[in-house]
């Protein structure tokens, strides 16, 4: 579970701290920083897990806050997983020579003990006092955690980082063929076929739940299967009855149908497995009738798995279901930076639904 996030000098975040709860709904007008928050989490994950080419976002100096002229960006995350606690901080500073960001400081703490540090004074990989280590060009874009001596702690940290998912389903981007298996979904679920190809091998219980739910949601849906094609193994959805069936490739389904498939995959394969899922606008493309059943099932799955679900949405159904209990509000100051999020509240007790309060612009009063 992600317990704390600190961002400084990244897009609209200046000295910004956020402590998410197990279930949370991020509210706010367009441009209030909600999606940028996911971008920051994704960038940290990308950088930490990437061992070859480095993260694009974390080294992109154009992501610095526009109205400041500060060279250093700071990202910090803290959380817990399987009884262990983690805290990780990375600072990047724009190089006067190259004009791109370089890692200027990094520190990983596991269970309160420092595992690896990098600062102006030097680098400590857990093998004694800090020392200045010449960094090869190959290594400079890679997180130092991969070189720490305490590999057991690093492994636990990486496993925790693996449980953080920042997703925004885009049915138009979905590719219906799988050349190989993918252990993780891409941010937009474009690799849905490859991801599902991995899941049917590795999570039959989750797959059973997925198929059961999809039979309820998609008219006359039967099951999925893979067929050989020139582009790899093509994901096919079978519809019909036991006597007659019609096969459709994933790309022949509607945007709404593909979004629902992705949502129920997220429910059964990620949320129900105790991961921390950030989901940006899950209501896109799906019919009103389908929102509440998914939302309530997701809420139960979070409780059972002790996972985490953080939603971004403007949809009235989601606002009305979640804003009162789990809503936090993102607002930008006049100077552009995002204020620390506050709990959603209003004095319209019993008179207006949250969506009505928000539609009137009264949520900040």
């Amino acid at each position, binding site marked *: 579970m992600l317990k704390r996030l600190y961002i400084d000098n990244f897009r609209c975040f200046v000295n910004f701290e956020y402590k998410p709860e*197990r279930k949370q709904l991020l509210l706010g007008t367009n441009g209030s920083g909600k999606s940028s928050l996911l971008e920051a989490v994704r960038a940290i994950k990308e950088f930490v897990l990437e061992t070859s080419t480095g993260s694009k976002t974390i080294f992109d100096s154009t992501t610095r806050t526009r109205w400041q002229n500060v060279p250093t960006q700071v990202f910090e995350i803290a959380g817990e997983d399987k009884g262990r606690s983690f805290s990780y901080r990375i600072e990047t500073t724009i190089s006067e020579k190259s004009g791109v960001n370089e890692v200027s400081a990094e520190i990983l703490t596991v269970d309160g003990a420092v595992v690896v540090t990098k600062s102006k004074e030097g680098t400590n990989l857990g093998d004694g006092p800090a020392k200045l280590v010449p960094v090869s060009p190959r290594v400079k874009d890679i997180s130092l955690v991969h070189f720490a001596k305490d590999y057991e702690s690093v492994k636990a940290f990486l496993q925790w980082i693996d449980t953080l998912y920042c997703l925004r389903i885009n049915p138009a981007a979905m590719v219906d063929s799988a050349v190989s298996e993918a252990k993780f979904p891409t941010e937009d679920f474009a690799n849905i076929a490859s991801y599902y190809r991995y899941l049917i091998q590795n999570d039959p219980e989750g797959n059973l739940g997925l198929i059961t739910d999809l039979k*309820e*949601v998609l*008219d006359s849906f039967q099951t999925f299967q893979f067929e050989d094609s020139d582009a790899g193994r093509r994901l096919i959805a079978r519809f019909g009855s036991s006597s007659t069936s019609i096969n459709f490739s994933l790309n022949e389904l509607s945007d709404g149908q593909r979004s629902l498939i992705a949502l129920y995959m997220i429910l059964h394969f990620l949320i129900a497995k105790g991961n921390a899922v950030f989901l940006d606008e899950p209501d896109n493309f799906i*019919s009103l*009738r*389908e929102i*509440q*059943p998914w939302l*309530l*099932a997701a*809420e*139960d799955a979070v*409780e059972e798995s002790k996972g985490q679900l953080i939603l971004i949405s403007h949809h009235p*159904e989601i606002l*009305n*279901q979640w804003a*009162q*209990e789990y809503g936090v509000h993102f607002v930008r100051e006049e100077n552009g930076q995002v204020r620390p999020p506050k709990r959603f*509240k*209003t*004095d*319209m*007790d*019993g*008179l*207006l*639904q*949250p969506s009505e*309060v928000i539609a009137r612009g009264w949520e900040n009063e």
Partner: protein
Amino acid sequence: MSSPSQIHILVEDKRQEMFIRRFLLRRGFDKRKMVFSPVPEGRGSGKQWVHANFANQVRVCRQRNSRASTSMFAMMDADELTVARCLSDLDNELVQSTQKPLDKIHDPIARLIPKWSVETWILYLSSIGASEPSISEDIPYKGSKTEEQWNELIPQASATLDAWSKSSAALPANLIDSLRRGLQEIPRALPAGR
């Protein structure tokens, strides 16, 4: 597209919503068969919300029930009032909206009113068989546990509610009164054979 919902649930807070949902899932209802009115705006206003919406939702339930099976659960905390007083207040809402009072035979509507709060029921239903102290309706338990602790008790509590709300169930001798009344209400809102 999903089939139409069959059971409408009006509750005053998230914990009640989770409790009823778990009970209905346990009873074998698919999650698409139930639909919840959004939990009301603002904290502490739940009872007002249920009151404000009860008559209208009863009207909706009665009207649709003439063409398709439709039932309703309404839940609100009694707080410092008696359960009888709360039931009477809900009846008054119907009268004021020019509707007939609830017909216990023909209206598939259950009114669940735990004394003090739903936490009394959750604690009682989840502590059966354990060496817990007996639960009293004289004590408000709401603040005695964290949100997470309450949520952890809900699956067991809803499972016991499911078992006890069946016609063949043997009920404990010391059953708390508000729960006894609730158990009498539940079968009305469940389709025959459930």
